């Protein structure tokens, strides 16, 4: 048999109908739903008098709008409250499992899917949310869809898709201290650009990737969409299986499932449409300076001069970005002072992220000029952190410790930047206004965010550590 990639194996087993010159009809194993991109889809079903075809494969949560303050109080924003109520009503009417605001499992959709074992290797997973690519960390083909497609999947459990191309990115070698999963993916986006993966599914491999924990793999796959890719994939292995074992929705006959999953990794000799190799040893902690995730430099670098860009679009983008970000060309990154720190989002709000932050800030203080908040990705993450006493380390250091949700990743709830405020953020998008109108976002790893919180400006965590050890 011809050798196949992980992507091809998943795709081939999910084809319901294929005809030359037409998109393929794919079967969908898991459909995740949140309150922002689903109301119009449920409305469409009601209009057409259709049921949800496989409610038992559909899971909903509230994350984008939810307040991250005291949950016993009523929600201030009546429109947010209504959107959440509409989701609850829809789930009840159509028989869909919902993890609502009061649920001990509530959290960001891309955090709770894996946590509950809803996300499994070899599956097709969709959600009306572009960061569905996160679930690719388990070797599942997972991608974001629009609301019309949400409706289609609700009604049919199938989806029309053009077959994407494949892109293999191999990262090898030992990661230097201070270089996190976030830095790997940011530097990849910096290299291939925000449309470098358009029309493609990226598989990440190489020994550096294989050595990552599941949390770290999720960080990498999460931001595949920021490189324009349809999805990110990492082959399942013992790390994956160990993570999934015993999770609530994981298969009961677990060993049988593992035997199946072991067939998934890309066969040797399989072909990709594009390939890229990266040496981990050459990577540094990354900081974005602009208004898209591809506008990124190593922390030891400086804000680029737009004149350095040969491409006219890139130059124009850079000029505009510097203007919006209030930065001058050639400013060293470590001289950029910040006002806010946000540690959270579906990129970096899992227990391991919080442990690393706690390890760094223990016994230190958040700088007087900074307001810093930590928003766990889910209620289970929050409880785990509290059980380990991390919340005490955070609050003693001066961090605000919040309830779970998307929070200031996109600021649909009250957590937003004010115009002109500059934020070190562990989220995934530094678009204009993303965290609040006029707000200035720099994307960094949790470790870099923690260090910036302590120092009040960006610092190279590698030097920081050496300095403290002496």
């Amino acid at each position, binding site marked *: 048999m011809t050798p196949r990639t992980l992507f091809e194996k998943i795709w081939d087993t999910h084809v319901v109908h294929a005809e030359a010159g037409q998109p393929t009809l794919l079967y969908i194993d898991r459909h995740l739903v949140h309150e922002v991109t689903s109301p119009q889809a449920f409305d469409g079903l009601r209009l057409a008098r259709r049921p949800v075809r496989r409610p038992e494969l559909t899971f909903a949560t509230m994350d984008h709008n939810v307040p991250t303050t005291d949950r016993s109080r009523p929600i201030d924003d009546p429109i947010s409250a209504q959107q959440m109520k509409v989701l609850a009503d829809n789930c009840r009417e159509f028989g869909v499992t919902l993890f609502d605001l009061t649920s001990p499992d509530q959290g960001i959709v891309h955090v709770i899917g894996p946590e509950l074992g809803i996300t499994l290797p070899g599956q097709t997973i969709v959600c009306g949310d572009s960061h569905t690519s996160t679930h690719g960390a388990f070797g599942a083909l997972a991608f974001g869809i629009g609301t019309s497609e949400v409706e289609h999947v609700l009604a049919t459990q199938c989806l029309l898709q053009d077959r994407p191309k494949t892109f293999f990115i191999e990262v090898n070698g030992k990661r230097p201290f201070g270089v996190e999963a976030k830095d790997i993916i940011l530097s990849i986006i910096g290299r291939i650009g925000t449309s470098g993966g358009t029309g493609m599914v990226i598989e990440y491999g190489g020994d550096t990737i294989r050595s990552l924990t599941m949390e770290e793999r999720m960080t990498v796959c999460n931001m595949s969409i920021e490189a*324009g890719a349809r999805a990110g994939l990492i082959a399942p292995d013992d790390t994956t299986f160990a993570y999934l074992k015993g999770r609530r929705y994981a298969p009961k006959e677990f060993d049988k499932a593992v035997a199946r999953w072991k067939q998934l990794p890309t066969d040797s000799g399989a072909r990709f449409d594009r390939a890229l190799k990266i040496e981990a040893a050459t990577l540094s902690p990354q900081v974005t300076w602009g208004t*898209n995730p591809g506008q990124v430099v190593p922390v030891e670098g400086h804000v680029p001069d737009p004149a350095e860009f040969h491409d006219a679009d890139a130059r124009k983008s850079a000029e505009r970005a510097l203007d919006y970000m209030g930065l001058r060309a050639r400013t060293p990154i470590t001289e950029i002072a910040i006002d806010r720190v946000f540690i959270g989002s579906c990129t970096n709000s899992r227990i391991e992220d919080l442990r690393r932050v706690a390890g760094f800030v223990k016994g230190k203080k958040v700088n007087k000029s900074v307001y810093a908040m930590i928003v766990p990705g889910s209620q289970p993450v929050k409880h785990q952190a509290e059980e380990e006493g991390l919340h005490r380390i955070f609050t003693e250091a001066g961090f605000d410790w919040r309830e779970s949700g998307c929070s200031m990743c996109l600021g649909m709830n009250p957590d937003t930047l004010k115009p002109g405020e500059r934020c070190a953020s562990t989220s995934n*998008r530094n678009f204009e206004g993303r965290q609040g109108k006029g707000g200035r976002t720099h994307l960094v790893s949790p470790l870099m965010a923690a260090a910036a919180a302590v120092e009040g400006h960006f610092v190279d965590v590698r030097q920081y550590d050496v300095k403290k050890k002496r």
Partner: protein
Amino acid sequence: MEPFKTHTGLVTLLDLPNVDTDQIIPKQFLKRIERTGFGQYLFYDWRFLDGGKPNPEFEPNQPRYKGASILVTRTNFGCGSSREHAPWALLDYGIRCLIAPSFADIFFNNCFKNGMLPIRLPEPQVEELFQRVRRTPGYQLTVDLDRKKITSTDGLDWPFEVDEFRRHCLLNGLDIWWPGDKLIEQACPF
């Protein structure tokens, strides 16, 4: 869904690459639970100054572009969030056709679900369109999906490419229900 066959309309310009869906429709307007009414919020943070007055520096705000239904813009338009509110807002504002060197995948897909036609043209041609439009107030294009051609009264006559299946759906106003429940029932082994 309204079929898209031939469309003639005024052209407006957005001279920026990598326009993300957060800009097309900022998050504070995603709380509506309908598909309509988003046009007033299109490009909100660019289109309006603080206080809600139109921003005169935002090119599409110029009076000469009022009523435009074709948007010409730069590479990687529609990147970022999967929100279908972005094409809904453009459609509600009056845009039926978009022309750019490239589009982000999810946005591109979402357009077709709403009877809108995104056209990819090579960068030099897009650049030329920018120049023609800026030179000639009231510049109009005719987009003929049947013949896969873009024409204008100034002699412009360019072919464009579009996926056959999507063309078929747009020409016939077919929405997302293809290929129909029957086929799914018959063919779905799951």
